[in-house]
């Protein structure tokens, strides 16, 4: 996925001079995950900016650039350090359009690696999508593989609104997929049916998509159950149509995410499905998530992040309800 993201950045920068990249170590070093590799060499240090170590100013100056008409792509080195700039995101990125009644807008992308399962230090394994999803004015995107990552990143760069773009660290190198040469885009705000089925809806995104898919395969093999798997791709605005349509068909849903459960994204997904498909529901909508604990260190992360076995068990519960 690293290469696919890098390609998206490269091609968009070639296409549009207003696109800039900024962040800690994104320049000469090419980013700690190499997503911005080679861009500095190609576009120079004015367009690929190695910033000082200060997240609020990365976003804050990015806002200023965007107000001027540029399209900054800001990288926060790990999502765990984005609360340092959360005030700039909430006070300004999300609101400048409203605050200026349309005179200004903030066509900016905020990229960050998120997620667990990669044996990382404290504050390097969290999934904070919920915080961004709840902020009106922001869009929140999480790809699940190289091809949709690239297409969504291109769409995010071209989007006139600020987009928070999460990249799962576990997918950077693990996920491989052929990506065409010509630029593709995917619409922000649309989920995809990753696997069709009629007995149960599994909702997932990011690295959990693979988990949901594998669970669906096992259900088909072992239980003769056809699960539909929905890949959200965009968390906010949430594609309620696709979710509701699926559950109207299946009557049952299990949501899988890495963020802690309580007040997490699964709650909105469940509540939205209930709103739209109440009369179709044959079981409570279940959530398979990390526990409501601070990330407990990687020696314990396997006990925390959802895996296929947990999804399977809860799916079977839901089917048996």
């Amino acid at each position, binding site marked *: 996925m690293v290469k696919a993201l890098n390609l998206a950045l490269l091609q968009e920068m070639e296409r549009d001079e207003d696109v800039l990249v900024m962040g800690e170590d994104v320049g000469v070093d090419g980013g700690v995950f190499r997503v911005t590799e080679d861009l500095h060499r190609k576009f120079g240090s004015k367009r690929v900016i190695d910033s000082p170590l200060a997240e609020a100013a990365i976003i*804050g100056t990015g806002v*200023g650039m965007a107000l001027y008409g540029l399209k900054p792509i800001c990288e926060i080195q790990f999502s765990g350090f984005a609360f340092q700039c959360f005030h700039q995101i909430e006070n*300004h990125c999300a609101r400048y359009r409203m605050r200026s*009644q349309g005179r200004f807008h903030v066509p900016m992308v905020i990229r960050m690696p998120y997620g667990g399962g990669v044996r990382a230090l404290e504050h390097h394994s969290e999934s904070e999508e919920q915080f961004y999803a709840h902020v009106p004015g922001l869009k929140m995107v999480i790809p699940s593989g190289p091809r949709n990552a690239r297409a969504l990143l291109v769409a995010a760069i071209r989007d006139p*609104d600020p987009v928070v773009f999460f990249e799962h660290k576990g997918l950077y190198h693990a996920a491989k997929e052929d990506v065409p040469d010509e630029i593709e885009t995917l619409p922000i705000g649309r989920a995809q049916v990753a696997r069709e089925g009629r007995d149960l809806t599994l909702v997932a995104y990011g690295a959990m998509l693979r988990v949901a898919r594998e669970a669906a395969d096992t259900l088909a093999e072992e239980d003769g159950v056809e699960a539909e798997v929905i890949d959200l791709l965009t968390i906010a605005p949430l594609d309620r149509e696709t979710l509701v349509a699926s559950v109207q068909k299946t009557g049952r849903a299990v949501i899988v995410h890495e963020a802690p459960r309580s007040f997490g994204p699964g709650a909105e997904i469940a509540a939205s499905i209930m709103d739209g498909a109440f009369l179709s529901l044959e079981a409570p909508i279940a959530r398979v998530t990390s526990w409501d604990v601070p990330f407990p260190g990687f020696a314990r992360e396997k006990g925390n992040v959802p895996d296929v076995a947990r999804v399977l068990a809860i799916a079977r519960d839901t089917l048996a309800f």
Partner: protein
Amino acid sequence: MYRGMLLGRRLDERMIRLQRQGRIGTFAPIKGQEASQIGSVLTLRRSDWMVPSFRETASMLSRGWPIEKLLKFFAGYLEGGQPDEGQNDLPITIPVATQLPHAVGLAYAAQYRGDDVVVMAYCGDGATSEGDFHEALNFAGVWSVPVVFLIQNNQWAISVPLKKQTHSRTIAQKALAYGVPGLQVDGNDVLAVYAASREAVARAREGNGPTLIECVTYRLGVHTTADDPTKYRSTEEVAEWERKDPLTRFTAYLKKKRLLEDGLEEAVDAEIAAAIQRFEATGAAEPLTMFEHVYAELPPHLKAQREQAAGWLREGENGGGTTAAPRETSPPMRGQRATRR
């Protein structure tokens, strides 16, 4: 120059009355800081950018913000935060110091595009304690961008005096932390502020990077109309600074030089009165427009919410007014389930 200061002062006084009458909400008067604002803002060209904090009435007026727009802002209409197309100013920013990195970003973008643009950003003494101040100054220093940070050190951040705000002897010396030139000027001397700002703006324009200017001044009035300064500062202190009132001082100077036009006060008052009339003539806020500036395009859930809100308004007794929601006695709306998704 004098006109700008006078306009600032007179509008301030009128706004306090409007606030007392409940026609606008809380706002921050500028009394005492007119020289700092006017002396600095006048060194900008129209093509330059101005980034205000929340107490820059005089600077904003000088940049061409219509009085009625400012009044609207403080009457709770976000329309008051909308600069005209082509006007290179940011709107009033309430969260202290958060606008400073925007100024640095604007300056970076101007430099990137090769535009001949200088950015002037305002903040107060209290704002220098925020992390955003530090990060903005540091980025500006490293990037060497054309930005002037104009700090109005009015001695107080609400009830907190400068010596509880920082142990630094001056605000100007904080510039050293960023390898940026720092100047301290008498902020109640409009010509001194002008001279210092001109120097800083010229330095920026010539590509020699940012400057921090500390204007030593005083907030003669309340922090905002919700504040009672007698709780935390002495009348003697205020009286002492009143003797240094920048407007009185500049008036005396101009009188001595026989440079004062006649009828200026009347003209200024008439301008204000006309603007207030226009302000009062603006209709009630159309509530549904709140859905307009969230995203470039209305996403499905907001379309649904907007429809639901519109339904309310149609059915509400006093639909269309500022108090848009139907009152509790109005017939409740039914059958909105379909749009609740």
